[in-house]
């Protein structure tokens, strides 16, 4: 990889200051995407600011009506958390299906969201459960956070501190995995939230998106059969060697039906 300066941040304020000092500084969370990108020279920041030592970014907190996860919470921690399993089992299950066990021991919620890989799982959880992304500057609603491929609403120097998930009435996430990488070819989070039904799809397009037609159908009748015949148009979907756009469109409906079934 190209050379960089390394800085271990002692606090969020320290990290924000270091970010603004560098020419092209990047935050290092779990590194499971970033280190791999650096090794391939797909990324060449001038400075890496390691968030691994910042205690205020860790922790799982039960609050009235929801759970707030610190940005540096590792996927494995979310998966085995008794609180998350009890309150939002779909979230624990999603976290437990990210990558493999070693990736889950290092990868973080904040890192995944800031990176916004089109085939990552957490974006479907945040959009599907209507979570709020809390940064060092503001709170960003799920519907406003995901902008495009590897693009989010985060501004320069802005750091995700935690993510607040309201408790859904019921929810499930079903993923059709790429058999080699285990990324989502299609992943669907179907949720009945306090604010209504939400269906969030990852893996299929340049960024996570909701399917309004499915949400309307499920609001009238929460059952897999309510989704029969609802197909997302293939023209905006990804096509690659793993799946054509038409196959992804087909998979979205299949996974959505399975998610609705699993949420019962």
């Amino acid at each position, binding site marked *: *990889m*190209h*050379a*960089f*300066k*390394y800085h*271990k941040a002692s606090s969020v304020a320290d990290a924000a200051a270091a970010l603004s000092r560098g020419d092209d500084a990047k935050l*290092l969370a779990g*590194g*499971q995407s970033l*280190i*791999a990108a*650096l*090794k*391939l020279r797909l990324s060449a920041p001038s400075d*890496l600011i*390691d968030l*691994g030592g910042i205690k205020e970014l860790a922790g799982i907190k039960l609050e009235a009506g929801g759970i707030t996860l610190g940005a540096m919470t590792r996927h*494995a921690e979310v998966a*085995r958390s008794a609180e998350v399993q009890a309150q939002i089992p779909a979230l624990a299950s999603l976290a437990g299906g990210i*990558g*493999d*066990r*070693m*990736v889950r*021991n*290092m990868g973080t919620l904040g890192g995944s969201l800031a990176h916004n890989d089109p085939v990552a799982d957490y974006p479907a959880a945040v959009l599907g459960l209507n979570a709020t992304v809390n940064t060092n500057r503001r709170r960003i609603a799920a519907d406003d956070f995901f902008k495009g491929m590897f693009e989010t609403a985060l501004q320069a120097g802005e750091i995700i501190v935690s993510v607040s998930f309201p408790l859904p009435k019921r929810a499930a996430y079903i993923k059709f995995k790429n058999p*080699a*990488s*285990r990324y989502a070819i299609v992943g669907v989070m179907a949720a009945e939230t306090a604010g209504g039904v939400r269906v969030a799809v990852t893996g299929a397009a340049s960024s996570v998106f909701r399917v309004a037609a499915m949400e309307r159908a499920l609001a009238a009748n929460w059952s897999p059969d309510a989704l029969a015949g609802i197909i997302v148009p293939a023209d905006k979907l990804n096509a690659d060697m793993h799946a054509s756009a038409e196959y992804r469109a087909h998979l979205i409906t299949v996974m959505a039906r399975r998610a609705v079934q699993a949420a019962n």
Partner: protein
Amino acid sequence: MKLSMRVNGKPVSAEVEERTLLVAFIRDSLRLTGTHVGCDTGQCGACTVHLDGRAVKSCNILALQAEGADIRTIEGLANPDGTLHPMQEAFREHHGLQCGFCTPGMVMSAVDLVKNHPNPSEETIRAELDGNLCRCTGYHNIVKAVKAAAAKM
């Protein structure tokens, strides 16, 4: 930059370039070559070590990220008197390897697996080892070894 950590129970410190990967530090600086580089893209798991008790892929972590950490490699798994860890013994008894290249990572990963799933089913073992690739064995004896070791751990 200065770096210190504990490796297999002993304190180590060194001066490392920022972009040194943990696996390179372990293999090249510490000469602990049981940890292997198989794919270098974070997929095969041959580089698996324990960092603060968690199995991680050392080829996908900077050495500096492990500052102050407690690292255990395959060399540190056996007992001080040389007797094998139950997982190592099970791999030996159930022939859970052929060429042995994936084996250190497989064993370190399996130890972490059993710690989190004390009585794992075959299905759980197969699912939870999906970050460790073996090109020789077809995995059957590896799964048998992990199941046998779990019963003794």
